[in-house]
């Protein structure tokens, strides 16, 4: 076999491997969508779930998922920005910062069910938050923070040090240089990471089972006072999310159309995560083009 044939063979093998992976993923995706999408109607998306009879929807779970996501991101985005900026721009190289980095890495590899049980002990029991959106949002923060922090740090680190020198040499303080030059330039990367993180949080179930709870009490969508017990905005109410709902239906669902509800909910979940990913890509590219003046939309 000569070199040319070897090359052809190797290329062929690589294509086959890639093809198998794509085939598996695509058929999984197609299976979920084909099974689920026919059940997705406006009624399904808005109606409350039913426990014993057919015809229930996922309205409350869907709302809970988004509300929990917003709260979790509200807590974790500023924290991860602060931590990432500190680690990338201010932290000196010493044992303490390398300890912080190692801790973040360990934290990011914790299984989510362990994070969930930790949240159950700390937020639900110790802090007496109960099964609530707040507990869920906090545990999602613990779950998401390491990855977001790493993302912020890496996005900032990818900006050339010459940009920092340029800012400092103009008499700008380090804070001004970081906030006005480095962070804006790293924004496409940071935003993409945040949106992908949001997608991951949206699909998370294990960490929420013991913290946000597995029940979705009826909500009164006419009263948005966060202190009212049935208010959608009340952070102290238990809130089953879409992902938890899917898990629950499949483990103990007794409604006659459990399979259909589960399939429909899975399709909605996957479409939502897909939208997050596509959105992240589009948004990141758009920001990058806008800032660098490359591409057809160049400013």
């Amino acid at each position, binding site marked *: 076999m000569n070199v040319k044939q070897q090359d052809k063979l190797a290329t062929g093998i690589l294509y086959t491997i890639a093809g198998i992976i794509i085939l598996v993923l695509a058929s999984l995706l197609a299976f979920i969508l084909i099974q689920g999408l026919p059940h997705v109607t406006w009624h399904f998306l808005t109606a409350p779930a039913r426990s014993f009879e057919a015809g229930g929807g996922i309205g409350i779970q869907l709302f809970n998922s988004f509300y929990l996501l917003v709260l979790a991101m509200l807590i974790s985005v500023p924290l991860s920005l602060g931590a990432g900026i500190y680690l990338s721009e201010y932290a*000196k190289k010493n044992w303490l910062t390398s300890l912080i980095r190692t801790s973040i890495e360990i934290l990011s590899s914790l299984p989510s069910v362990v994070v969930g049980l930790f949240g159950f002990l700390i937020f639900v029991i110790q802090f007496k938050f109960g099964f609530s959106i707040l507990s869920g949002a906090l545990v999602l923060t613990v779950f998401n923070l390491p990855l977001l922090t790493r993302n912020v740090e890496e996005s900032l680190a990818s900006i050339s040090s010459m940009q920092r020198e340029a800012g400092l*040499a103009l008499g700008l303080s380090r804070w001004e240089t970081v906030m006005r030059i480095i962070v804006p330039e790293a924004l496409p990367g940071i935003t993409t990471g945040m949106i992908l993180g949001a997608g991951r949080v949206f699909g998370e179930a294990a960490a929420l089972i013991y913290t946000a709870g597995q029940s979705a009490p009826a909500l009164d969508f006419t009263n948005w006072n966060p202190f009212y017990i049935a208010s959608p905005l009340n952070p102290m109410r238990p809130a089953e999310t879409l992902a938890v709902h899917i898990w629950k239906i499949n483990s103990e669902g007794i409604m006659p159309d459990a399979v259909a509800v589960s399939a429909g909910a899975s399709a909605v979940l996957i479409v939502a995560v897909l939208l997050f990913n596509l959105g992240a890509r589009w948004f990141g590219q758009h920001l990058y083009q806008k800032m660098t*003046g490359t591409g057809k939309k160049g400013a």
Partner: protein
Amino acid sequence: MKDYDLTKTAIKTFDPEVQEIALSTDDLHVFYGSKEQIKGVSLQFPRYQISSIIGSSGSGKSTYLRSLNRMNDEIQIARVTGKIMYRGLDINQPKIDVFEMRKHIGMVFQRPNPFAKSIYDNITFAPIRHGVKDKKVLDQLVETTLQQAGLWKEVKDTLHKSALALSGGQQQRLCIARAIAMKPDILLLDEPASALDPISTSVVEDTLAQLKAHYTIIIVTHNMQQAARISDYTAFFHQGVALEYAETKRIFTKPAIQATDDYVSGHFG
């Protein structure tokens, strides 16, 4: 490499009564960790003149230049001792406000490093941060500095386009315009033309010659012809020591030190 006697130096000094000194260093040492990169350099840079610093790679010329506006502060392991005198003040002291000082001592780097902003914003960014608000003043500043940097004609219709779309030579001239928009006293240039093609280089050199009327310029360069072409005074660095400092013509025709002679005539190392 030949061993040269690092203790035998020929450094020109100026009488401040006759020639105003913009910046000077007195026994400046720079350490990276435990390694001494600059071993006690004392030089005076006359005002409204171009002084160039030449020497081989690793001679410490860039390290020396970067310590003049305390950019070495940014390197965690770097330590700078000795005096840097500017307007009768030793600026190499912890209590000096380095951010204020750097407004007076600007710097242009080896590789063009414009911000990922428009050409206009690149120039006005720092002045706005330092409190210039008037749109008319800013517009004027952009035009003046771009003209001084020899870039105005090429970009006057595309001021609001991204600076990253410019060529390397244009970007470097933009960086010069950006630096002089702060109206510094002194401009430090660290091999500003090393990443540019000959045409861009000659434009940048013309620019520097124009700027000399208003600025004191200290330039590090690899390119000896460049030093000979544009500078009034030249310092030759070797292994962290300034071996010779004199009028440029003298350095290139009748150097006092053997090492300088070997370097400028190409028999070095």
